[in-house]
């Protein structure tokens, strides 16, 4: 029995007992690189906070390393040296207002510049995905709802939405090669078929290209480039399929939430899958939209309303009423503070998990960049982002601090560029970046 296949259930079976055991170190396992004696690559997970935040509890008054954390970040107290709070960043050219913030959170594109037509550009997670492979899945887009538009954070190189999913089983099934030999054979046959279709399409397009003018040739070249990217991904996928499904504790992967419509259950299940995906190295890039601007109406909201004395409202209304400058003791504001704390509780839990997984050197958390933030302090305001960066010690990040930049001094694109470069992606610019954020580098 290898350490990575050692499960709590197998222990219980061994003793013939039904008691739950505490998590033991042996169960937490190692990364694929640590198991095989390789070097761990970088990973990236980006989480989007919808609506707005309780800014009274989010932003520390002091900057630097001796800041006093707000109550929102108390759940992260055991990870104080592994995360930083970043204030004052935003999209400058891409500043928007309204309900469309998820569209450009990771792209920085000004989606409002062409009224009536929503255009976009590549999200920085997809730039990372291009360079951080090969993996079975180039990236994973998770959300509160399956779909495109405001439910997903990821846009491909043409700015087109990459569909996100909220289905735990679908995530699990897509994340790993089939366990069954005949299904594995079928999967490889599908790749062969897709490759032949691409070959045919590519040949036709190359023939067409010779007959076109300069402008159309450029457009066709873009198209061919995307075909080449897909071809490469198919090759990568095929190579990984040959290895079959990695060894992990499958029986203990939770895919059914215990509660009905619970935000915490949803986030915990998704974040467990993120940890599993990173540990088994099936993907190195994840985006996760933590909720919509107007929903879902999770079951925690009425409980929080009772605790704070806020009236029962829909999620959209809480985002409006709970943000802004109505005072830290306003019931709606306190309610949003409770939601923010839940996000941090889930993030702390993910960090615990990643920290407990041994990497080639250090922990999986040391090789993972976690970014959690949103586009709005007050509802509809896009002028300063609440941002938190965690993990990535081995990637060169310096944590334990609150860094504040003046308004429009630096952009979110500067942060994205910094992350990409620390992940060893060969990029020198992202959107409106002016350079890296040296303040957060060791």
């Amino acid at each position, binding site marked *: 029995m290898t350490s990575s296949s050692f499960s709590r259930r197998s222990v219980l079976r061994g003793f013939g007992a039904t008691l739950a055991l505490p998590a033991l170190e042996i169960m937490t396992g190692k990364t694929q690189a640590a198991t095989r004696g390789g070097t761990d690559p970088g990973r990236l997970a980006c989480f989007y906070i919808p609506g707005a935040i309780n800014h009274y509890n989010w932003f520390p008054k002091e900057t630097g390393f001796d800041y006093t954390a707000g109550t929102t970040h108390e759940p992260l107290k055991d990870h104080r040296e592994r995360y930083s709070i970043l204030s004052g960043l935003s999209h400058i050219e891409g500043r928007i207002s309204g309900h469309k913030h998820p569209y450009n959170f990771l792209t920085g594109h000004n989606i409002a510049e062409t009224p009536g037509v929503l255009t976009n550009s590549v999200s920085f997670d997809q730039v990372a995905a291009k360079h951080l492979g090969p993996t079975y899945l180039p990236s994973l887009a998770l959300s509160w709802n399956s779909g495109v538009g405001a439910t997903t954070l990821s846009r491909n190189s043409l700015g087109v939405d990459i569909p996100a999913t909220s289905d735990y089983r679908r995530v699990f099934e897509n994340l790993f090669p089939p366990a069954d030999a005949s299904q594995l054979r079928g999967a490889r046959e599908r790749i062969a078929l897709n490759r032949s279709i691409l070959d045919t399409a590519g040949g036709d397009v190359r023939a067409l290209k010779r007959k076109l003018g300069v402008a159309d040739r450029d457009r066709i070249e873009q198209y061919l480039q995307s075909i080449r990217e897909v071809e490469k991904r198919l090759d990568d996928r095929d190579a990984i399929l040959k290895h079959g499904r990695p060894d992990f504790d499958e029986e203990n992967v939770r895919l059914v939430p215990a509660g009905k*419509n619970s935000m915490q259950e949803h986030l915990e299940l998704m974040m467990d899958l993120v940890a599993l995906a990173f540990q088994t190295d099936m993907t190195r890039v994840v985006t996760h939209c933590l909720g919509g601007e107007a929903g*879902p109406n999770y079951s925690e909201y*009425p409980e929080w309303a009772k605790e704070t004395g806020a*009236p029962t409202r*829909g999620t959209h209304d809480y985002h409006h009423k709970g943000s802004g400058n109505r005072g830290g003791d306003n019931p709606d504001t306190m309610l949003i503070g409770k939601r923010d704390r839940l996000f941090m509780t889930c993030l702390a839990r993910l960090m615990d998990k990643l920290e407990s997984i041994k990497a080639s050197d250090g922990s999986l958390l040391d090789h993972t960049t976690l970014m959690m933030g949103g586009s709005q302090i007050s509802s509809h305001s896009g002028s300063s982002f609440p941002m938190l960066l965690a993990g990535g010690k081995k990637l060169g990040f310096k944590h334990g601090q609150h860094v504040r930049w003046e308004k429009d001094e630096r952009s979110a694109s500067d942060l994205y560029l910094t992350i990409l470069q620390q992940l060893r992606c060969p990029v020198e610019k992202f959107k409106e970046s002016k350079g890296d954020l040296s303040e957060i580098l060791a």
Partner: protein
Amino acid sequence: MMAVRHLVLSLMLACLPSAEAAEPDQRWKCENQWIIALDTSPDGKWLAAGSDDGSVTIRTLADEAAPPALVKRFSVPVTALVFLPDGKSVVIGTWDGTLVTCELPGGKVIQKFEEHRETITTLALSPCGKFLASGSADDRLIVWDLADGEDLLTMHQGNEYDVTTLAFSPDGESIATGDGENQLKIWDASTGEAVETLKGHQKPVSAVIYDPGGRLISGSWDRTIRVRGKENTVTLAGHAGEITDLAIDRKGTRLFSGSEDRTVKIWNLKSAKIARTLTGASASIRCLVVTPDGRSVVAGTKGGILRWNLK
């Protein structure tokens, strides 16, 4: 030209002196609760109330001292309710999307409407009393046949911003909805087709009703009420907080608006002026209902239900 007329009228109305204020004639305490939904029975004898503690209660309006009876308790807040025409049952909607008809006073569930996936935000009966319309945070409006519980029509809001409010037109041929994207939509009640999208409010639309003459009246978080006639739109401004609910008397002469400014205002629809301001609430007004005889208005708020007798 039309826009200028709206602006001038809005400014005129905003500058009107405060009308006569009035404290409630009756307070029914509901400790540690927000009353979110209210309705009166068609004969005006009973008042049903839905609370954020999950309870639905019913009380007689004839005896103010009589204690309320608990009809049913849900595990989540009750977010909408409406009496059926027989006066012997109520349709109840909840935070988690449950939509049921309960007998009165025992609370036995006699019909379930199982389609909505999220919070029931608003309910209305068709003028003929045969159909129920339900709006939800799942961004859909569904029209149900009350005879057999069948869902006859499903209208998709077209955005992710909740159906916040709805109303049948007096002839029953149209349904108006409001949403969190500041818009009103008019739907054909027989086909489910979206007929018209109305803009103008600057913030989410929180309440919509029709007057007996067919004018569409909407209230918004932008603190204004817009009365849309065939010829023009009149904007009523005077609240210092977001409009939360609207009600109208049967004659259509008096409009009632509840607000987060903790008041209910009575508007004379002919003159478009504030006739009275009803005060005495210690928190936002969440819901409003006018008794069928037009003699009192009842409001739900934090900690209780308030009743003002009208002249």
